[in-house]
Structures are given as C-alpha cells and as structure tokens.
C-alpha cells in the first residue's frame, strides 16, 4: 500500500466515509452492462447453485440448481445460462469496423494491404467480486471439453448442445480478466477499491456490502457503523441482514434454510411427485432469490457510483484492446478451432506473462497520466515532480553538423524527486514525448534546472509550443512514459531443450 493510500484510509477513518483515490474512472463501463451474480454450492468446488443475471436492473432473471450435486440438473442449469448469456456475448460480433494495415509478404517482400475486422463494441460482464470471476473460470474449465449429443461420438454423458461453447466463452472472459486494465469481465469490489479508500482493511473491502457502506453510508451514519452492520448484523433467526455477495453463501443460511429445503426437494423427487417437486424447487428459488436480490441491487448501486466519475482519457484505448480480444475469440470460434487447452505450453505461458506485464506497466503509466491523484503517488515516492516553470533559457548543442535546440528550463517544485544531476526525466502531458536531463539542483529553494533533449522538431529553433514557457505548470517523471516492447519468443514448435522441447 502506498503512502498516499494509507493517508487516504486514515482520513476515511476520521471522516467516517470513504475518500477518493481517483478523480476519473479508470475502467471502461458499458452503457448497459450485463450483471451476473453467481452463487456456488458448499461442499464441491466450482459447483454452481444459482445466478441472478441480466441487463435490466428492474427485471433480473433467476436460474437455480435445486440439487447442486446432480449433474443432469447442473448441465440443464448451464444450458439455460448459455441461453441467457450466449445471445448477449454473440450480439457484438456482427457490427465491425474495417481496419487496413500494410503487411510485408515474407517471401516476395512486397507490401500488400491487409483488411482486418474489429468489432465496434464488446460485451461487458459485471460481477460482484473476484470470487465470482474465479467461479465463472472454473465453470468454463469444467464445461469447455464436454461432449454433446451433436458430436460424432457423444459418449455416455452428453451435455446440452451449447454448454461447451458457453465454457469456451467463460474461459476466454476469465483469461482476459487476468490482463491488467481489461474490462470484459469486471469485478466490482476491486474496481470500487481502486477508486475509493475506505477506513477498513483491504481484506474487509472484499465484502461488497461493507465496501458500499463506507463509500455511500446511509444519511447521518458513519461508515464504520454501516460496514459493521453489513458484515455482522443478523435477524432474530440468525440470518445475515446483508447477505454476502457470493459466490459462497452464509453458512447459517445454508444449514437453517437451504439444506432442509434441498432435503425436502430430494424427498419429493424420490417420491416421483412431479407437482410437489416443482413446488419444492420453487421454494428453493424463493430462498435463493431472497439472498441474491440484495446483492443485485448492491451491484447496480456500485455501477451507479462508478458512473459518477468521468471516464479517464486512456480508457477508450484500453477498451479497444478488449475489443481486439473479443474479436479474436469470435474468429477462433468461427474458424472451428478446438477449445482452449487445459494448460499453457511453455511458449504460450511466456507470451501471456509478457503481455500481462506489459499491460500492467501501461496501465500504471496511463493512470498516472490521466489522473493527478495517481500521479501524486509517484510524486510522493520521489519518482515524479510537478511545478511551475520560472525561467527558460535558449541553448544549443553545437557538437554536430547543425546546431540543435537544447533549452534550459528551470522548474520550481515542492516535490523532492530522487534525482541527481545527469539523471533523465520525461515530460508528462506535454505536446509530444519529451526527454530532459537534470543539469542543476537547488534542493533548498526547490529549483530544478533541466535541459530539454528531444521532442522539439528537427530545426535549429524549437517548434512553437514544444518548449514550456515561464509560468506554465509542468510535470516530469523519472520513469519512461511508454511500456517497452516484449522480446520475441520462439514458436511453440521451436521450444528449446531447456524447456522440454516442442509440446507433444
């Protein structure tokens, strides 16, 4: 946790309400996101119990598995989930924009124009927390290889036709959610915690009810009281007032209500009484709806809160990466490629790790550039400084054939960057990428004299507007402002002996 976040948390404790950690929203938020609140059954990892889902906050759809250990009921549930989710996921595939790029033919060396499709928009699933995300990933893993009645060899336990396809989509979404800054599958608690600091630990922030209690406490109530009630308040029967946002259910709910209801359902089924079985299933539906609906409203409240922040400047760019990811998966499904493998081979794993690291660097940089509060963390850590230009002196590098502009800019700042003369800095929010080096430092007076090294055009005099003027506010960072390219890796079939050779 950075010093600034610690400070914000302390202030939240004093104020009794969460404090902003961002001035803008750093994640994409669809106009009509698809909200999904899943519950898992206790006792078996990844066994779905129920889900409340949809794009209409007034009218959610409830799907349940009345006996979560019954595989037939589970796959029937997943088939219905697919019926709800797949049309939404696939609906973005048709509207595309065409992008041209020139590619070099590897053999002839000739340049040709290649036209690629990019979907104009992509789906967005909002779930309460990372646990829900993980559950969707597990469901994807357990269904994408299943055989269906339509297969040539359906095997002894075929599942409904579109279940494996649902598994492939869920796998893709969960895989993509591991890429920093991606928003196809958005966990609400983590997203809210990025934008607000509460007066509780980050572990407690994982409880959606408690987190919202800090960010938007009821009028006249302090955050810690509201959060404590959200976490611990129980009614006279011992049920939690605010049910947990899943995927695990409250154990008291399980043993007091759910388990007896499932037992009654099993009995009705064993007696082959269809009418009673249906009635028992409806009881279970009502029970699960009673613990899901409060979470459903919390999720939409969280979405509303995020909407109060204007989107950050780079969100559109990052959403475009999500759109590429969506388009790529759409194409792989359309091309009839097999489901994603169970494990990554050496090269694929290394490529994914490189991508995630690159995107993490990019995300940190873009957040700092988009948001003065994010930049403040770097300034406080001595990795950036901001201030007013007090003097600009023209100067030139005459070592080459023609003189180049190397003006000296003196900045007055209250920040204390960890920078020694000769150190390189980068201008944030300038007209173009611009490097400078520290020439002279007067720490007492807070004066830093920098020599601008680039970003001023090719002429002897700098292009207008490229050199800051006296009185202008500027910000420089000690770190580079773009993510580095990842080094090339071999093709999987060229995996070297150190890594076990090509995958078999």
């Amino acid at each position, binding site marked *: 946790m950075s010093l600034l976040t610690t400070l914000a948390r302390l202030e939240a404790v004093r104020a009794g309400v969460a404090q902003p950690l961002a001035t803008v929203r750093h994640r994409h938020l669809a106009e009509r996101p698809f909200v999904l609140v899943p519950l898992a059954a206790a006792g078996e990892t990844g066994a779905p119990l129920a889900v409340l889902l949809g794009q209409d906050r007034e009218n959610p759809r409830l799907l349940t598995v009345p006996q979560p250990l019954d595989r037939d009921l589970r796959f029937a549930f997943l088939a219905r989930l697919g019926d709800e989710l797949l049309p939404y996921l696939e609906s973005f595939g048709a509207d595309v924009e065409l992008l041209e790029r020139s590619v070099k033919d590897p053999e002839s060396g000739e340049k040709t124009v290649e036209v690629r499709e990019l979907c104009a928009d992509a789906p967005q699933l909002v779930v309460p927390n990372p646990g829900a995300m993980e559950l969707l990933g597990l469901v994807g893993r357990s269904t994408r290889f299943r055989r269906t009645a339509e297969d040539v060899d359906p095997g002894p336990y075929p599942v409904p036709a579109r279940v494996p396809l649902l598994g492939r989509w869920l796998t893709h979404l969960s895989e993509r959610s591991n890429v920093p800054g991606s928003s196809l599958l958005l966990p609400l608690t983590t997203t809210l915690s990025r934008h607000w600091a509460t007066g509780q630990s980050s572990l407690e922030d994982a409880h959606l009810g408690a987190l919202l209690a800090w960010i938007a406490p009821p009028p006249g109530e302090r955050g810690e009281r509201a959060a404590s009630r959200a976490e611990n308040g129980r009614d006279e029967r011992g049920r939690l007032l605010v049910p947990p946002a899943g995927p695990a259910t409250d154990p008291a709910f399980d043993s007091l209500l759910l388990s007896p209801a499932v037992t009654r359902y099993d009995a009705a089924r064993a007696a082959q009484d269809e009418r009673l079985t249906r009635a028992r299933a409806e009881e279970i539906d009502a029970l699960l709806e009673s613990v899901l609906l409060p979470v459903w409203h919390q999720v939409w409240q969280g979405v509303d809160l995020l909407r109060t922040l204007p989107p950050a400047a780079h969100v559109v760019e990052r959403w475009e990466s999500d759109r590429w990811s969506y388009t790529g998966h759409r194409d792989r499904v359309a091309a009839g490629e097999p489901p994603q493998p169970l494990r990554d081979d050496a090269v694929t*794993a*290394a490529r994914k790790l490189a991508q995630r690291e690159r995107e*993490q660097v990019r995300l940190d940089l873009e957040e700092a550039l988009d948001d003065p509060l994010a930049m403040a963390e770097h300034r406080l850590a001595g990795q950036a400084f901001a201030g007013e230009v007090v003097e600009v002196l023209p100067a030139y590098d005459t070592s080459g054939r023609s003189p180049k502009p190397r003006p000296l800019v003196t900045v007055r700042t209250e920040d204390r960057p960890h920078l020694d003369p000769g150190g390189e800095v980068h201008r944030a929010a300038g007209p173009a990428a611009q490097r400078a080096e520290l020439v002279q430092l007067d720490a007492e007076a807070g004066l830093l004299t920098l020599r601008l090294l680039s970003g001023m055009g090719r002429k002897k005099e700098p292009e207008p507007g490229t050199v800051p003027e006296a009185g202008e506010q500027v910000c420089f960072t000690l770190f580079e402002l773009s993510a580095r390219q990842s080094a090339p*890796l071999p093709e999987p079939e060229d995996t070297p002996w150190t890594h*076990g050779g090509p995958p078999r």
Partner: protein
Amino acid sequence: MTTLPTPAASPSPGEQADAAVAAILASALHGGERGTVVDSPPGAGKSTLVVKAARELVVTGERLMIVAQTNSQVDDLVDRLAQADPGLAVGRLHGSDALPGEIAMRHPGVVASTKVADLRELPVVVATAAKWQWVKDTDPWHHAIVDEAYQMRSDALLAVARLFERALFVGDPGQLDPFSIVGTDDWAGLHHDPSQSAVVTLLAHNPGIVPHRLPVSWRLPASAAPLVSDAFYPFTPFRAGTEPGDRLLELGPATPPPPPGLAPSLARAADEVLDVAAESGWGLLELPARLTVRTDPEAVAAVAAVVARLLARGGETRSERGSAPVDAGRIAVGTAHRDQAAAVRGALAALGVTDVTVDTANRLQGREYDVTVVLHPLSGRPDATAFHLETGRLCVLASRHRHACIVVTRAGIPELLDAHPSTEPVQLGVVSKFPDGWEANHAVLEHLRRHRVAAR
C-alpha cells in the same frame, strides 16, 4: 580462538575448491548432458570460475557467448576477463540506450557494439539476457555460460536458448528469486512456469543434470559463514576459506566529536555497536519498537549515524589480502526498498558522507564490501509480507561483507514473525523452498541477539 570442526586429514579449503572447479570444467566441456549447473554460495569464487571456464573454452578454439543479467554484471565480467587475459578479444554487445561502462571499455581488447554481426567472430561475446533475446539471424554458438542463472527468469532462457548448444549455468540459489509485477498463479506447478528461475525449469526438464557445488566461501569471514550456511543453505553447507583471526577490523578511537546534526546519544550507540561488530563480525543496533512508514526517519538516521561514525573513526582491515584502511568505497548500506535507499542517501549527505554505496538487496547481489550496514526489511512494519520475508532478500543483505555486518532495526521483529506465520497457498507441483523466510529470519535474529546494542 576456536578450531573449525574439520578433521585434520580433510583437504584444505583451497584443495576442496580446486577439486570442485576441475569437476565442473570437465562436465561443461565433455559431460554427457547439454547443461551443467553450478550452485555457489555467496563469495565462493563464482566469478573466478566463470573467467576460468571462459578461458579454458577459448583455448580449445571454441567461440563462447556469455549471458549475464544486468548491465553492471556484464561490465564487471568483461573487466575480469580482460584483466585475466589482456590478449583476449572480448565483444561487449549492448543496447542502444545502455552504453557499456568505463570499467569494461578501458581495456584495449574489448570491442563494443549494438550489433551481433560486428562481434560474431570474436572468441567471447558478453551481453545481458535482455539484449541476447533480440539477437537474430545468427548461427548458434557451441558453448554458452549463463551467469547469475538463478536470477534469470525461465521465459528469458526460453528466448535465448536457441542461441547455444551447450551451456554452463552458474548462480547462487540462496539469493533473490526472479519476480513478476503481475500474478503468476496460472502457471504455478508447471515445469515451464515462465516466472520461475531458469535453473528450476532447466533441471525439471533435464533430470540427468546434477548440480555441482562450490564448497568454500572466500568472502564471508569465519564469523559469518557458519550462520549464513546454517540459516540459508542447511542442506548444502559450505565453509569459510579463512580461519577465525585471519580477518581483523581495527577501528580508530571513538574520540572525534560527532558532527552537528548527529545526536550525541545516537553517536554513542553507533560507536558501541561498531565496537561490538569489530570484535565479533556482527552488530545489531535496536531502536525502540514502533510502527513506522517505510522510510522510518529514526531508523534511517541510525543507519546514517553508524556509517558516519565508522568513517569518522577510521580504521584498518587486515586479511589474507594484507591491510587496508576502512574507506567509503569499502562500505555499503543495504535496504529492502528504493525509497529507503534514497532516504539513507539523503541522511548521509546531510552528515557530509557521499561516496558510500547505498542500494537495495536486488542491486547489491554479487557485490562485495568490507563492512555493510543493513536496514532490516521488517523494521517498523505492521505485517510480514512475502516480499519482506523472502529468504533471498535477507541472505543477500547478510552476506555482502568480508569483515563485519551491522543490522539496524526496530525491536519486536520476533513477535512480528510469530504473529505472521507463512500463509502462502500450497500449489500442487511446486517444490516448497526450504528454509522459508520465516525460519531464516528467526535464525538470523537469534544469532544477532547476542550482539545487540540498544539505541534510545
């Protein structure tokens, strides 16, 4: 003086080390496996081995590529190679934004270039793993040496392994593991987990490779080798190359008055812990327990005070290399975080000290000093995270010195450790590292307790 627990008939440290090196070279040149792995404890002559192996390979007419992890490591290696054999032509391959250091380029036999084609015909070419990854369109080398291989990530090896047929991997398994800025649980337990060390991946895929070991630390004094060996290398013990009494640190009297800005009471405590460390090789300067920000101003001031007093008093080190004055170039300060290093640098500058190396554990890897002053990674913390508990971090910080190591910390770390047992999830297929940071921290603190000086 105590005697080492070695039977009289056993070989001397020098003989042990020579035998190990001979076996390693035989395996690297003619062994049945394509890879040879050498585990080396701190200061066991790893760099000397690399230089020796490089020269033996070159003598046979082979061209050799060497992979190191950082630019300063590459420069150091080039310097050592050129010093050992001034007639040897060494290529220093570098990136366009990372010019080679002066220490490497002062030798006439060293040629630097950003393009491998310019260096391809030279007997030895040295570059960082990051630079080698971009090399293409070239025939593979027959032999490679990978230095600091335990700090190289598996994915980096994946990208460079196409460049060589056989390789000698040399490194210290007790130092910091490579890390990633993103979560890597997706690949935990896979043989080819891209975030783990290159050696772990290599050994998992080539079970025939049995790592060699260097048995003697020439750097660590007799006061330090047993502790570091027991705490960090319990299954692969090593010994010091020198006997107790071979290394002496004689400090000047504590007479010079402390400079303005250094509180007299803190100066007294610093003098006291310096005397303890000069006598025993270890010192623990303990501040009252308190939760602090990372750049704890009092702890930073205490670190600066110890360094400033050491320099003000002056002194002399005596060792098998002869005697030398204790000067700023032979002292280092180690911290866990960069902002802590920056804060110590600032505090030292305020006391008029500028030439002392102050850096993080990551950057001190592979370096050697006479006296080190360490800000304990857990000092003042409310929690013990995996980062601060990492065995390698403490191992690096506690094994850089030839004479004495002084640790500065807030009191209460044993209690902090007891309140934070290891809770890392167990991953199938991942070999758990032993000792874990928790155990190693306790072992080191238990030892340091005997050399404790309290600061008020």
